[in-house]
């Protein structure tokens, strides 16, 4: 009985929902200092959910809940990634909140909202119908809007939240409109049924479907933060407080890829000829604009925002390649990118002190003299983002290039790598600031860096993982590849 229960594909989501309710109630009734109990419970719920996902790894692909919910190896990989990222995110966030003056902290709200957003990600990942996909997406997004607005008394925070919410609502509208057009032509909301109907159409598609596709791609591009829907990214990254930027910059990207996989690869594979050039243009525009504009940024978070746009471009290139290898490499890229982005924001949190928030790149000046180990970790993260071996960032880029070259798109690969070189400038600039310059003699900059032990350990593990996955990338690549190598959609 219990074993049967453990094999139930929706168990992680259900368990997580129950735990979230518990955390919510606890916060109401238990007086706690610095939200310690909420934090512990939130971590516990993530760990429990992670265990449940692990238990499912041998469960065959299947569809439940009247075809609303799918379980397959793509869902398995992405859920694992999201949950592991979630654990790290909460560790860093806890450190950031510990440093804030204790007055207006809504820290247990952070954990509850964060957990809800993660639940949304899990549901998006497993959605098998446009309806559940949309619901999951909204569950993912709404807590993020609220999180960005937590420091609403600060002007740029409020502005960022407003911008994010309005543009996000617009994107949801676009997506929904696209869904309705697809529903109108295929008469089904179920993803596998849509794909089947379209494959029987024999290459003849109505114009309505194409318009629907454009809206859907627009929605995906917004959620991922790709050009031309990128304008919210820098403002939100800069306006939100760092732990929330850390959240937005890591796990939702993975969920965004899940959205693209479910919609483009699972639902609309027959329209491959139509979405491939669109996506290629979006990808090229993203890494061009992201890499070029990042060069002139002086604000570290803004620079990382443009770098995120550029990385999304590379992630989409794998889908453009249109082969299982390409999809797998996109998945590999997005998970390693999320790990890098998390490390970078985690480092900003760790180096920031109670009265000294890291904002500008120059605030890292002379970090090597102040704290060599943290500087070394940041060095690894930066070189990994730039794609220099032996870090995982190199293999992520190499996988994408390999996928592109194997479908004879050498020119696209060349363009991608040329912009990767241009992009490497602003990463090595950060290294330059940390290593080649001495700390500016202000009182804040010269005081020793104080970090909580857990966050310190987490960041060390995070950065060392980038090296370890760079030296032994095979296992994680194999996991990503196995997600796409078998036909894991149940036959009806």
């Amino acid at each position, binding site marked *: 009985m219990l074993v049967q229960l453990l094999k139930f594909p929706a168990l992680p989501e259900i368990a997580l929902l129950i735990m979230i309710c518990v955390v919510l109630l606890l916060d109401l009734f238990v007086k706690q200092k610095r939200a310690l109990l909420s934090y512990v419970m939130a971590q516990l719920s993530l760990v429990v959910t992670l265990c449940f996902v692990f238990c499912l790894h041998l469960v065959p692909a299947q569809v439940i809940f009247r075809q609303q919910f799918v379980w397959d190896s793509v869902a398995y990989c992405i859920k694992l990634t999201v949950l592991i990222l979630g654990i790290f995110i909460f560790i860093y966030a806890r450190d950031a909140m510990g440093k804030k003056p204790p007055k207006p902290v809504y820290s247990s709200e952070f954990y509850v909202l964060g957990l809800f957003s993660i639940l949304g990600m899990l549901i998006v990942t497993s959605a098998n119908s446009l309806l559940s996909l949309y619901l999951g997406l909204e569950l993912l997004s709404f807590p993020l809007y609220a999180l960005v607005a937590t420091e609403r008394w600060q002007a740029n925070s409020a502005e960022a939240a407003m911008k994010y919410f309005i543009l996000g609502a617009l994107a949801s509208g676009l997506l929904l409109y696209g869904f309705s057009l697809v529903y109108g032509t295929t008469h089904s909301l179920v993803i596998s049924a849509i794909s089947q109907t379209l494959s029987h159409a024999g290459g003849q598609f109505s114009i309505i479907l194409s318009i629907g596709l454009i809206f859907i791609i627009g929605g995906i591009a917004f959620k991922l933060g790709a050009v031309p829907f990128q304008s919210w990214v820098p403002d939100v990254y800069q306006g939100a407080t760092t732990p929330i930027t850390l959240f937005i910059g890591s796990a939702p990207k993975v969920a965004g890829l899940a959205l693209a996989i479910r919609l483009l690869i699972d639902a609309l594979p027959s329209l491959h000829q139509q979405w491939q050039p669109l996506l290629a243009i979006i990808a090229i525009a993203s890494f061009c604009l992201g890499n070029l504009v990042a060069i002139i940024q002086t604000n570290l978070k803004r620079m990382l925002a443009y770098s995120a746009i550029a990385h999304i471009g590379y992630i989409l290139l794998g889908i453009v390649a249109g082969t299982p290898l390409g999809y797998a490499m996109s998945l590999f890229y997005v998970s390693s990118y999320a790990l890098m982005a998390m490390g970078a924001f985690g480092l900003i949190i760790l180096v920031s002190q109670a009265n000294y928030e890291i904002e500008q790149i120059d605030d890292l000046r002379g970090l*090597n003299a102040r704290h*060599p180990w943290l500087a070394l970790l940041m*060095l690894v993260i930066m*070189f990994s983002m730039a794609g*220099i*071996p*032996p870090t995982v960032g*190199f*293999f992520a880029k*190499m*996988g994408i*290039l*390999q996928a592109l*070259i*194997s479908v004879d798109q*050498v020119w696209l*690969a*060349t363009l991608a*790598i*040329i912009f*990767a*070189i241009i992009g*490497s*400038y602003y990463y*090595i*600039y950060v*290294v*330059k600031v940390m*290593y*080649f*310059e001495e700390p500016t003699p202000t009182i804040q900059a010269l005081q020793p860096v104080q970090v909580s032990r857990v966050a310190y350990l987490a960041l060390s593990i995070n950065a060392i993982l980038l090296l370890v996955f760079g030296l032994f*990338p*095979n296992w994680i*690549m*194999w996991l990503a*590849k196995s997600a796409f190598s078998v036909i894991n959609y149940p036959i009806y």
Partner: protein
Amino acid sequence: MFLILISQLSLFFKDHILSLLIFLPITGACCAIVVSGDAHPQRARIVALITSLCSMVLCIPIYLGFNPGLSTMQFQENVPWIPIFHVNYGLGVDGISLPLIFLSIFTTLLVILSAWRSVHLRVAQYMAAFLLMQAMMVGTFAATDSILFYIFWEAMLIPMYLSIGVWGSSNRSYASIKFFLYTFFGSALMLIALLYLGLHSANHDFYIASFYPLKLSMSEQIWIFFAFLIAFAVKIPMWPLHTWLPDAHTEAPAGGSVVLAALMLKLGGYGFLRFSLPIVPDASRLLDGVMIALALIAIVYIGIVALAQVDMKRLIAYSSIAHMGFVVLGCFILFSITKHVQDISMAQMSLEGAMVQMISHAFSSGAMFLAVGMLAYRFRSRLIKDYGGLALRMPLLAAFFMLFAMSNVGLPGTAGFVGEFMILMSAMQASFWITTIAASTLVLSAAYTLYMYKRVFYGEVSSPLIANSKDIHGFEKLVFILLTVAIVFFGVYPKPLLTLMHAAIGSIFQLSLQTKL
């Protein structure tokens, strides 16, 4: 029991000696960082020295066990590394890579010794950076899998970037970023070429050897040739992609300049021998005129540019470019030699000359950079005009420097003579004019080297600082003696080097004469 353990252990070492040579310095670098904070620099120095000496010792069994008669890879190690992409951890040495590996280890030892008293800032990180560079360098030369080769090739940028930027002189940030972007740009296109070749090779693997029999059309070959050319031309460096080198050399610390000149430039020449010539022979044959022209421009034009330099390090940097032009000439003249004469051995001699030139240039320019580094450390200036009359106060340094300068000029009896002479002699078979233009380097290099020598070491003692200076001390003497021995030995008796590389060069030569169309 104990004996069995020992024999097992020695067997393990025998099978993995190249890996050991790569991972020993990495371990040493980690140890140097761990055992010494900024409070105990001496510990870092000792750890680095021990690591470096251990690497030297490991070279002995490799040299003894190496069979120079074979042209194949020896001491091979092959482990599947990323089976998804068919990337293997493949190591091996032949007669081309072995001298360069020894050179890397020898140079690192010199760098560590010379930094003993002259580096005081973040000593542990300095030592670790150079040990890491040694590991990456050995890995690059020993890799038989092209992706592994690329990984070492790129990973080297990290410690080099840091060493220029952290320990360099005033304009170091500019120079290090320029260095990084140039070399990264060059090698990125090579990655595309390697991936392309790997996808088309027989087993979809990335072994360099499995690229050799691959059939490629002429247009493919030309694209791949240019992708390789940009990578190697930046490293070697060839005109017009050389502009990073004078900046990087000038701003780098003494050790950084030495590694740049003695090792990093050699990667370009190694790349031509290992990749360009055997993988795309038809494109190389088609475009050899371009390459020879670029080499001659480097030799003559850069030689003239060197004459005008006022900064000693910059002068030696330009002289390096001119000398590496000879390596390019030696690599690509063989096609026109085989066109003109039947005597294959002459053409092969040009390749061997290129190889000897790489080794000898490492000694002479490395030595000169070390010497200038010592001067810059003592007198805080690299400008020629700030010096004068040093020979009076520092006779030992003056004597050593004279020898290194002579080797740089290519005086018979020094290592610098052998390579240039071999290349010029074989080039004579191809074309009188090419040889004449190339031979102008003998005049030019004598002019700029000796003119600098005269202004720095002779004449009036120019400043009180020089008047009160002391001659070189123990560690510096040791470094110079080691270099002198190497320069004179290979100048008088280059045979061991030639026998070591003969068979391997021969096989590269045969591969570059084949046609793949």
